[in-house]
């Protein structure tokens, strides 16, 4: 159950490999089929399955893109161009995203560090409590390992003080002894490499060195000995990354042991909590609570992260490809409802970029359109772009149409490219104006909510999709904000102008608009009314002019990527559809082009689809053996038998000589597999009205599940 294995059903086989290059490491690794179920992998959000057997012939080039000859005849240069464009864009995005994620962590790490340093130095006072930091790390447990490894690194690397850290996953330690053993071995072992002469304490009874020391490996006295010899270590920070996902008995026992030793070993305990405090509270007995002195930390303000993502990645000045509104909405929905994980969000954006450059031959124009880059075919393809066509149509339908201009676009490549370049300029302008508008709306909301407006604040991430699709222009939300402006007091005016100064410090356009208000020159009540009407008009004008839809731009298909279903299928596949598709068309996944033997399961499934809700087992067997025999006769070619043997391991027979008993074996196997997949259920036959007991399978059909 926990391992949601999703293979990306893309039409081109190369795509999964591309993905593996650009997912950040840590959460997503390619793994063997056999290792899939291991506990370590249980919390990954994404799995990549390596195809076993013959690999499809690898491209000789050092990139993973293939020529898109079906749509446009492309030369190798173009493919390489697309590849380099893709890698360049994705690199810039990735650094930004990494900065964003790290910055978000940084402040909390700093606070945790401060807490660790501020805890009481160890002394002989028997009434001190064990300092515990509760790190609220969010419910997305797949990122916890990375986070706590970071935290441990951060604490160890700080200058001035020397702390030893241990990261412990309690799900890997089933008992107190094992947990203590892990803590001790990590510390004592870890230091051993640094200065071998100082440490002689062996890690466990079996280790070489001092043969006379037969202390058990979970005896904390070992750690005491080690600590006494460490002169520089001031504190021992124990990080438990899954405090609430673990057996709470072990956790309380560990806390008790650390508490008992607190006056000899200066422990600081950091607990990673994936749920929230009320739930965690129910898992810790009051008796344990009395041993600890705690403080809580929030790790990641993910919603702020989204806003920053919109600013830094989606609408930044270097953005060349815009994530479309429908795609963004679907991503946001998935984020809120399913993941709450900024990392998966950024992966989806990276995937969108990859899909654009991979599948769109015209994507090469994103880097300043030059005639040298483009072939004739590209020019022809450019003229077939829908937005360009409708632009030409519009031009023609106008009364004073510029025939020369249109003719130039349709016949002369260089003028088309010049036009394309101007369109791109327009697109960049559009981006920066959108960004301004979103920030301005933010400022207006801030100014108004301070004064008790009833409108709940909408973040930039929430507004993004509406803004770029032009739906925000004239919407009730904007109208209410403008209404607020026309009612505001002079204090609010000051506040607003201060906020605008602060945020749009270097933005000439917004500053120009603001300078037009002439704040400060007018005093008195009449003047105030005049001023605010002035302001509201100018802001309304500004928003109206700039909250355009991206579809107004000609060639927007080249600058905006909005394929929702592609991304949804890749990241949140519908499993029932996938399983049924795999059974109905096994060639889709097995990668064989026609003329091969279907797996037995797939045959059985075909019969299953044809039957009613109750399937008599004997009938089923007859039908299956019949279809096995008939398919034997059909596939006489040797290629078929190899395909069969490859995918039906354990069934040694060649399809030509399938004896009766082998057929029965195949049938049993198939039935149990169908049962395991949840297609059928064994049921008592009496319900169906028969008095004699007849083995019957019941179909388990449920729409949408």
């Amino acid at each position, binding site marked *: *159950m926990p391992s949601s294995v999703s293979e990306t059903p893309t039409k081109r086989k190369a795509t999964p490999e591309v993905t593996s290059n650009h997912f950040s490491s840590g959460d997503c690794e390619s793994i063997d089929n056999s290792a899939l179920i291991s506990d370590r992998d249980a919390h990954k959000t994404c799995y990549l399955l390596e195809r076993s057997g013959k690999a499809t012939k690898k491209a000789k080039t050092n990139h993973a893109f293939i020529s898109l000859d079906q749509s446009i005849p492309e030369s190798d240069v173009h493919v390489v161009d697309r590849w380099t464009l893709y890698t360049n864009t994705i690199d810039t995005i990735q650094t930004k995203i990494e900065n964003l994620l790290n910055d978000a962590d940084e402040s909390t790490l700093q606070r945790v560090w401060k807490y660790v340093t501020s805890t009481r130095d160890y002394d002989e006072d028997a*009434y001190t409590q064990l300092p515990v930091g509760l790190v609220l*790390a969010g419910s997305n447990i797949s990122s916890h390992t990375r986070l706590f490894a970071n935290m441990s690194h951060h604490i160890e690397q700080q200058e001035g003080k020397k702390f030893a850290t241990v990261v412990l996953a309690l799900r890997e330690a089933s008992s107190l002894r094992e947990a203590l053993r892990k803590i001790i071995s990590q510390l004592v072992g870890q230091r051993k490499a640094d200065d071998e002469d100082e440490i002689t304490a062996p890690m466990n009874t079996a280790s070489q060195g001092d043969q006379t020391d037969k202390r058990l490996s979970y005896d*904390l006295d070992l750690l005491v000995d080690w600590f006494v010899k460490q002169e520089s270590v001031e504190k021992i920070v124990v990080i438990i990354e899954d405090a609430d996902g673990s057996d709470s008995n072990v956790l309380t026992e560990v806390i008790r042991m650390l508490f008992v030793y607190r006056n000899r070993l200066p422990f600081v305990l950091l607990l990673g909590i994936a749920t929230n405090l009320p739930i965690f509270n129910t898992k810790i007995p009051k008796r344990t609570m009395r041993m600890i002195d705690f403080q*809580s930390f929030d790790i990641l303000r993910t919603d702020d992260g989204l806003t920053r993502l919109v600013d830094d990645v989606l609408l930044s000045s270097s953005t060349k490809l815009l994530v479309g509104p429908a795609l963004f909405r679907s991503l946001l929905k998935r984020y809120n409802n399913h993941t709450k994980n900024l990392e998966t969000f950024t992966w989806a954006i990276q995937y969108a970029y990859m899909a654009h450059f991979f599948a769109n031959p015209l994507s090469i124009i994103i880097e300043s359109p030059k005639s040298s880059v483009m072939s004739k075919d590209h020019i022809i393809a450019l003229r077939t772009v829908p937005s360009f066509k409708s632009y030409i149509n519009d031009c023609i339908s106008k009364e004073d149409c510029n025939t020369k201009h249109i003719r130039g676009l349709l016949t002369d490549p260089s003028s088309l490219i010049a036009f394309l370049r101007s369109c791109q300029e327009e697109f960049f302008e559009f981006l920066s104006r959108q960004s301004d508008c979103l920030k301005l709306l933010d400022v207006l909301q801030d100014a108004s909510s301070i004064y008790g407006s009833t409108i709940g604040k909408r973040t930039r991430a929430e507004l993004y999709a509406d803004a770029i699709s032009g739906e925000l222009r004239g919407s009730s939300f904007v109208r209410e904000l403008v209404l607020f402006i026309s009612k505001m007091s002079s204090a609010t005016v000051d506040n607003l102008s201060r906020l605008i100064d602060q945020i749009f410090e270097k933005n000439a356009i917004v500053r120009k608009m603001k300078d037009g208000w002439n704040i400060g020159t007018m005093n008195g009540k009449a003047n105030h009314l005049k001023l605010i009407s002035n302001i509201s008009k100018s802001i309304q004008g500004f928003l109206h002019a700039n909250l355009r839809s991206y579809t107004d731009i000609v060639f927007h298909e080249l600058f905006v990527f909005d394929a929702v279903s592609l991304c949804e299928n890749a990241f949140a596949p519908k499993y029932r559809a996938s399983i049924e598709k795999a059974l109905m068309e096994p060639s889709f996944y097995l990668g064989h082009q026609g003329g091969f033997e279907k797996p037995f399961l797939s045959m059985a499934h075909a019969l299953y689809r044809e039957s009613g809700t109750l399937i008599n087992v004997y009938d089923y067997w007859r039908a299956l053996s019949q279809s096995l025999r008939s398919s034997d006769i059909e596939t006489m070619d040797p290629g078929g038998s190899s395909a069969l043997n490859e995918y039906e391991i354990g069934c040694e027979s060649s399809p030509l000589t399938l004896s009766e008993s082998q057929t029965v074996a195949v049938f049993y196997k198939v039935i149990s597999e169908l049962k*395991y997949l949840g297609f059928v259920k064994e049921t008592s036959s009496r319900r169906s009205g028969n008095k004699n007991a007849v083995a019957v399978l019941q179909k388990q059909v449920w729409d*949408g599940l």
Partner: protein
Amino acid sequence: MMAGLSDERIQELAQEFPSRLNQFDLLNCILSNDKGTNPTTIALVGQSSSGKSCVLRRFLQEVRFSHTWLSCDECVSLRILFQRILAALRAIGTQDPNKLDYSISCHNFSLFVTQLNDTLKALAFEHAHFVVLDRIDELGEPYESFYQLIINIGNMLRYDGLTFILVSSGTEPRSSVTTAFPHIYFQPYSKAESLAILRMESPDSIRSMLRSTERELSDVQLTSLWSSFSQVIIDTYFPLYGPDIQQLKSTVRRAFPIYAKPVLDGVVGILASNRDSQSGFVKLYKINQPLLTSEELVRNSFVSYVRGSNATESSAHHDMTVYSKYLLCAAYLASYNKPRFDIRLFSRIRENRRRIRNATKHKFKDKINSRNFAPSPFEYERLLAIFQCLVPDKIDSVTDIQTQFATLVSLKLITRAGIGSDSSGASSVDILESRTKWRVNVSWDIALQIARDIKLQIENYLMD
């Protein structure tokens, strides 16, 4: 040889420990330096923090008997305790008694007794030696059989001179109740005695609690401040903690810096003379009333303490995802509703026939609130069906739902029923079975809280 302490000395010692004269006297009577007259085992029993360890420690320090002190709560297993006892005994008489020799490992009782005999033979005590097993009830393993062994160890040792002192704050194991050996009982402190103990803090340690040294107070001032503070603390917290000195002292350590801050800041006048102290105390008390009336210092829950700070708004950011909450609510409903009511609760099909029959049948059963029962297992498919009914918008069966379910399972909010050791009954479940059974693992309070977050009227879907 010295025969214990004189009565006068015991009187002096008892000054340091309120109402422990009797215990000192008993210790003095029972224990002696002569190895022939000591019992093999004695026990000090009484509630936690009733002064057992410190009285014993003070006594042994005073009479200067040779002894070994071992804290059992530091030992995760009996093996460690055995090893430490032997190592400590073997270190006696060597040049460096602090360097312990851990070359022996000891797996079981009989080996322990054998090795103890060997050690005693080598040591050949002239005088009595005492091994104190402090907090024996907090040993990491069940300690009943060990307790029994120590009580009867006199029969198994071939060399005398060794006496075990057991210090225990739990009840004695049932198997050992009938065995007669000396017990010293430490009765719990009364309120006045607790106050006296709190007041005994030395000026230096009070000063170290304050940490800041900006404004020096004289010893007299400190003591006066401290004694009024102790009175306040006892009045406030004695009803809550009882005579638990440990708790009281740790509360005192947290509260005192805040309490004394107005004095250090000079807001409240120095409480030097008796005449001023009354008014100064009242002023100080008034300033600190919020501290003493709030639950901030009690801290037996993570939540109430955190609410005090500004963390309430931030907790929303770290909540589970929306559908996880729905899944959890669905799991609660699946566990606490019987499957036969599902149609009535979650569909619009009318079901008149059954209602009449149920009303008569379950007259007696309904007396117990079903929320107090253990959650019953449910099938995964049933959970999904209920989930679909609860979620307001139509959702596709994407893998994200399964991932979230898996996350809830690894957070132990939902547990797998009938697999491995955590099942209540025998596990006859086939792992390859396509149907899996699960159980919700959150209480009604939490379920209600989560349902409120997603604005789900969970009560409407429960049968009770």
